[in-house]
């Protein structure tokens, strides 16, 4: 399949390893990968903080980049939730008939990375090897907006060498919430403290998720406490190969 990547502004700038891992997994599975260079941001931060006027033009930009794609794969559940939940009504509010039709045609072809593997390709074992003790955090947008269910865990269970340990309070928000972490720093910190404690209680070497935004937040807390526990995006675990590490 010809797969177009939407790497997201956040992953592109701060977590390029995740994008590289997505490329590695998809190519290993025999797919052709494309990266439309004009892509920037889905507009989630603006939209969620109340800056609708700034977010609206990004819909047309996204459609322009991806309208010819067979499938669009995104290593971020919150960005997919933004596109799936909000783009149709954003296009409608712009009253642009052509855009409305294009969004309607494109949105069903946009997948979060783990969702693409488990639901579109119907895979669980992607031939990965990762000999570490890992715990999985279910990001809110993946869990509730996308309904990823246990898809990510099934992918992880199929990884060779992995020791997957379940975290207490799996469905609890880590407290990131974009600008929430800054505007309500105290509450966000308290939520984070619960999450890092839960991570540490598992005894895992690394915490993984389908969203680098949550992971950046969790990692920030773990690093501040000098715990030595790392965070790693799910794609990077699935990209692991025997002999490569």
């Amino acid at each position, binding site marked *: 399949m010809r797969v177009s990547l939407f790497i997201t502004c956040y992953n592109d700038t701060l977590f390029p390893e995740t994008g590289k891992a997505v490329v590695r997994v998809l190519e290993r599975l025999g797919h052709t990968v494309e990266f439309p260079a004009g892509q920037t941001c889905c507009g989630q931060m603006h939209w969620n903080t109340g800056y609708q006027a700034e977010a609206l033009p990004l819909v047309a930009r996204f459609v322009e980049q991806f309208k010819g794609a067979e499938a669009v794969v995104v290593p971020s559940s919150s960005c997919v939730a933004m596109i799936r939940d909000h783009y149709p009504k954003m296009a409608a509010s712009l009253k642009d008939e052509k855009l409305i039709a294009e969004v309607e045609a494109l949105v069903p072809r946009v997948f979060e990375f783990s969702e693409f593997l488990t639901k579109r390709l119907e895979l669980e074992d992607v031939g990965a090897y990762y000999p570490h003790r890992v715990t999985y955090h279910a990001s809110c947008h993946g869990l509730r907006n996308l309904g990823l269910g246990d898809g990510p865990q099934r992918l992880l269970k199929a990884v060779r060498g992995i020791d997957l340990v379940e975290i207490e309070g799996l469905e609890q*928000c880590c407290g990131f919430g974009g600008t929430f972490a800054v505007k309500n*720093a105290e509450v966000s910190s308290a939520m984070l403290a619960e999450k890092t404690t839960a991570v540490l209680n598992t005894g895992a070497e690394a915490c993984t998720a389908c969203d680098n935004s949550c992971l950046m937040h969790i990692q920030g807390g773990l690093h501040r406490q000098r715990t030595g526990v790392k965070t790693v995006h799910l794609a990077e675990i699935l990209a692991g190969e025997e002999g490569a590490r």
Partner: protein
Amino acid sequence: MSGAVLDPTTSPAFPMAAKAAMGDTQLRKNVRHATEVIQAKRARVVDEMPDWQQLREAGKQIRQHTMENLDFYLEEFERNCTRSGGVVHWARDAAEARQIVTALVKASGSDEVIKIKSMTTEEIHLNDALEAAGIRAYETDLAELIIQLGRDQPSHIVVPALHKNRQQIREIFQREMNLPELGEKPEDLADAARRFLREKFLRVKTGVSGANFLIAETGGVCIVESEGNGRMCLTLPETLITIAGIDKVLPRYQDLEVVLQLLPRSATGERMNPYNSIWTGVRAGDGPQTFHVVLMDNARTEILADEEGRQTLNCIRCGACQNACPVYRQTGGHAYGSVYAGPIGAILTPQLQEMHHAQSLPYASSLCGACYEVCPVKINIPEVLIHLRNKVVKQNGLNAESLAMKTMGMIFRSEARFRAAQRLGRMAEAPLVRKDGQGEGWIGWLPGILGGWTQVRDLQAMPKETFREWWESRGKNGN
């Protein structure tokens, strides 16, 4: 916060109030324990319903249909209520509602009232108004009684004293009921409250109640509760005054079938409420002989006019969103500065208060969606939060935040500008980056409002190369 009236027009912004609340470890422990217990019960009784999702959908449809035809159903309610001997009054706002109720109590010839739990009377600070008019109000709902005797404020719409534990309640009872020997078993406390209240039930001739639902088809009013004290207030007085927001109406008697399944399971994890009272008008020689209903607008028609905010009025006040909300669970209810706390409060209060307090309440959420997931009538609270944030941004005009957001928006509209910003970011952060033990670059301090991040979190330095740079060099090297 104890003692201070929860008034959204004067209470501090959420982040400040939250900080204060979070310093109270006992309160946080109580809130955490109580919400965990209720949530577990809720999950159990919801899971046993095979058609729960259909029920939710039915609930949503009923409420949506009602709101779309609210004028029609309100008039129908008025007609049917009047026909069966009730008297309907209309109140535009809180002040008018207070005036009407106070005058009705005075006309009843009593300077005391017994009350059954009603967030609507809390919303309009009725007790203070009654007191100013020389009328004493006795709360009879156990939780409300605890709040009243403790000179406290409700922190939850279903369990107003959720932030208090049994020991604290016992202390309040010992002091206020003059019972120094009172034990701390639940039976002891219930017994003390029963004796304290019984005397009032039998003596006071005027009752003031809220309403869970108004039934247009019959002109009836419905209250659900778990102690039976409500039933006493509805049957023993000679005069009964019910006050309800105009959003409380349901079209048909049969609609209760849906909402009376959704409400108790969502609210307290009960299959059914122990007491479901429905009363319609008056009947000679039985129950109150004078019955008034005050239908209060208080900004509800304005919410109704807002297409995106309208679904807020579908709320049946079950409080499930509060229990599920990780923010509420950290702060408790008082931080929200209003009797409506948690996610529903974060969307309802600003809309009831002409967007006063909208600067902070709609932002008191990580948009995790737990509230939407549990809401029995499927109110998309995150969507309304975002809608209100947008209203605030539009109201505010230019400031440091909006400038930064506008700049970022401009950057994202052009690939060239985005690339330039990525390069600039690396340069700008350089002076802040420190190497950690592993030789990796981290930022432990950020300036200005971003400092909120580095209070408890580090930030990893930006990588040397962006994904797109890697992708391009990979293409060139042909690997």
